[in-house]
């Protein structure tokens, strides 16, 4: 059978067979949960947010399935191009972007208001995966290799941080750094840079936007301004805490229903979910994310090409970061930085980026035996 031979293209049915159905099931389940949560944020009616979210999920999910059929080599081949295109979009956004609530993050593509920084969260991993695919292990720690990697990483971060969008730039940085780590960069460099960051922290804080400084101060002590900057954290904790073991019940989350929760359909969707479904519901949701991350990492571990392996490991870790940062934020463990919960949060660009990531992972799964020269 051709399955044993290298570089053989699987047939359509083999591809279908090779799909990771557990992953797909988890994504669908998450989609369903997110649709119901969105329905709840609309006050138990299908209004703008729920309708738009469901449509986006269905479109991008279908798109993901179709993209999964692309050979993994396609992604490898165009990895740099994607990076350049998204980088170009970022430049466009900072020049001609749409402004909303004090930052310029979106570009108008007529059919969608695209937030290129969201795409960058995935594309940076893709780009690094290709970059390190070729580099020999003994070359990884050379000055030149590290320098180019840092340029690749810092360019988009700078563009995103000036939008300003601290949350997304942190996630891009984390996604990039985890790939650098996986690629084998000497642990010393991480330690050194960590020390350097600590030292430069006071200077960096001086450059932060006033609202960002406020958020950090607020995180350290939410009660210093309970009706102003601390409001979100306090109300979010009240919502989660009042959920109890099994929650207040679907559509019965008073904190969100009575509009005490800010940003309930985007960054604070988990708060709403935790309020309505309690500790058990939160654990279930967390479990779904853990399964998804596990499946993505598993695909990485069975992939024969270094590119696919690195991407899957990187992307799996990135999802971990998205989930962790978002949950820690709404649970009052991290300062409020804008970061959506993948698939759950309302937002087309985030959904698109996440689905593209899954499409690449799925493609790696289908073509797990594929080697890339």
């Amino acid at each position, binding site marked *: 059978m051709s399955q044993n031979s290298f570089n053989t293209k699987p047939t359509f049915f083999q591809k279908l067979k090779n799909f990771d159905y557990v992953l797909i099931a988890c994504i669908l389940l998450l989609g369903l949960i997110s649709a119901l949560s969105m329905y709840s944020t609309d006050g138990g009616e299908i209004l703008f947010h729920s309708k738009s979210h469901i449509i986006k999920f269905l479109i991008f999910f279908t798109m993901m399935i179709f993209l999964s059929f692309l050979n993994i080599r396609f992604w490898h081949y165009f990895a740099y191009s994607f990076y350049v295109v998204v980088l170009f979009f970022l430049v466009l956004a900072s020049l001609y972007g749409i402004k909303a609530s004090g930052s310029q993050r979106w570009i108008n593509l007529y059919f969608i208001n695209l937030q290129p920084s969201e795409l960058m969260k995935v594309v940076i991993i893709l780009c690094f995966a290709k970059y390190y695919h070729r580099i020999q*292990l003994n070359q990884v720690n050379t000055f030149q290799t590290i320098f180019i990697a840092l340029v690749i990483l810092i360019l988009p971060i700078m563009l995103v941080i000036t939008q300003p969008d601290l949350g997304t730039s942190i996630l891009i940085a984390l996604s990039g750094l985890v790939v650098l780590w996986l690629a084998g960069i000497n642990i010393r460099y991480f330690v050194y840079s960590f020390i350097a960051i600590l030292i430069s922290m006071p200077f960096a804080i001086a450059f932060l936007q006033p609202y960002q400084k406020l958020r950090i101060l607020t995180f350290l002590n939410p009660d210093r301004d309970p009706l102003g900057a601390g409001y979100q954290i306090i109300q979010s904790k009240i919502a989660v*805490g009042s959920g109890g073991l099994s929650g207040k019940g679907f559509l019965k989350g*008073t904190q969100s229903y009575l509009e005490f929760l800010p940003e309930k359909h985007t960054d604070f969707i988990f708060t709403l979910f*935790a309020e309505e479904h309690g500790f058990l519901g939160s654990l279930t949701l*967390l479990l779904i994310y853990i399964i998804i991350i596990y499946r993505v990492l598993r695909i990485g571990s069975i992939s024969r090409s270094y590119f696919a*392996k690195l991407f899957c490991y990187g992307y799996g870790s990135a999802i*971990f970061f998205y989930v*962790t940062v978002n949950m820690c934020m709404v649970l009052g463990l991290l300062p409020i930085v804008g970061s959506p919960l993948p698939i759950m949060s309302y937002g087309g660009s985030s959904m698109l980026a996440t689905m593209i990531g899954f499409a690449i992972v799925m493609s790696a799964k289908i073509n797990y035996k594929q080697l890339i020269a």
Partner: protein
Amino acid sequence: MLGENSGVKKVQTINRRMFIIGAAKLIVFTGIIARLFSLQITENKKYLTLSDKNRLREWRLPPVRGEFLDYFGNVIAGNLKVYQLHVIPEEVENFKYLMVRLKKILSLTNREFKGIIKQKNKKKSWETLIISKNLTWEQFTKVNYFLHDLTGVKPVLSVSRNYPFSENYTHILGYVSEASQKDILNNEVIKSKHVPGLKVGKTGLEKTFENELIGTNGIQRYEVNAYGKRINQLDHTEGLNGKTIKLTIDTEIQKLCSELLKDLAGSISVMDIYTGEIVAMQSSPSFDPNLFLFGINQDDWQLIRNNPLKPLVNKTLSGLYSPGSTFKPMVALSALENGTINKNFKVNCMGKIEMYGQTYHCWKKKGHGVVNLKKAMKQSCDTYFYEIARKLGVDRLKETAIKFGLGEKVLNKTFNNEKKGLIPDTKWKKDKLGKSWVIGETLITGIGQGYTQTTPLQLCQMTAQLANGGFKIYPKIIVDENSKTEEDIKFIMNTNFKDLNEKKKGSQETSELLGFVNKKEHECLFDDSKNIKLVREAMFASTNEVGGTSYSSRIEDPKYQFAGKTGTSQVKRITKLARELDLKTFEIPYNDRDHALYIAFGPYINPRYALSIVIEHGGSGSSTAAPIAKKLFKLIIDRHELREQNRVQKVIKV
């Protein structure tokens, strides 16, 4: 192959490092789960409370104020249903149009119209706007007729204070009006029960008994959103009505008092001489307290405030007058008690006496000739009382007067505007004025002039205590269900009297000891009951014997027969010229005219009621005040039967 070897190492590195990250992820997820556990399980109660605090709001409804009843259970301050018109601006499509419609339907004035618009701009769009606090029935029906196309308009049935006997109870009850900032700050109970538009007592009993009358708020619990908007009502607790307070006043007598005082400035107080119940207490002129309910308009207010007859003053207990000759029974009693005189003591009245170069006139220029106690009291001979006052001395006189309740508040703290009055003595003058007492002052004190100041209610109490045989009574205006009956009180008085006689027989020491140990209820205010009897007889003569000052006001029917004492209280020192001119009352300017006073008790045989009448600037007591007593006593005695029945009925009910 070097490449292949390197590739294997590369894969080993990535897998090793992935494993490390994987372990780190598990630790982080465990941390998140721990956090969720602490928030949702450990601290769940705390956050549940906070969440409820967020979403639940209680709205207090205005409490329903307790009622006032008269002695016969008639409502004298009640709660009336009023029709109000409320609008919730949020529910109105076109507010301007609606307001124009309402203006037309209710025929609002431009000023009212602007006031409503101003009110609306201050409030949130979902807060109730009161268009009218008190719609007339016509307005109410008219609004209801058009209601189908007045969306957002709500006719509401509410309660408001109502005083059905309008000006008859004004000074006793006072009135209610919207609570001011000061009311809220000064009274914790009002503070805790306050709702916008709450009306509280401003004067009188309405103010004194505020805390009992106010009732408790009904409570509506609502779920609200983050902006404070009511989303839905969760429950409703009815408030409790305030306490009903029953007065000892008889509305019929009160009404007659008010009629008799019509167009006069003055007061009437009527009291039960045993129970101390105030049967009537009217101050004139009065005003309609209903005017204050929805905010009095400026014109009405100015009219009341600027009235020279001072309708805002409760003259029965805030009006201070020299008692004039109504003080003479006290002087006589004090002189008898102290042994200064006996009943046969005589003075030759020549119309005036000289003392240290100063002349003291009797009201009768020609003089009364030789008078004894009875005759002196009957004709109100000033010379006689100058003489006995001089012999008695002011300090001993004060002792007796204080015993009978002069110079002290009659109703204690029941009214915050009650005055104490003043019974002077030598010490008082030394302390307050820094001067020594002079004998001439004793003389004029003896006829109730000078520094002496009393309220009509004090005079009434004094008369009552003379009438009941000289026993202390405890005046009251609120019916107390546990209070003693007249029979009980009489029994106590008799026992006290017997004790007193026994004490007199016994050794001095034991009697002092006993008197010190138990200060008794209804104690004897005399040493010898004969003295009281003498004074009462003299008062009887004053009213019922030819030549008495109030002889023309007597009633011969023993059922109604009463004994009294007139008084004419000088407002201005009588000048030599005036004395020579001897002007008639109407010839003197109003503010210089004497106050006319009268105290009386009746029926003479087995007395039961005492009264005091003061007519400001009324001229002489015998011509102005005493005739009022005649008209009053008929009704008071006639109502006695009913009053007793009412008491008996109550006892049976219990």
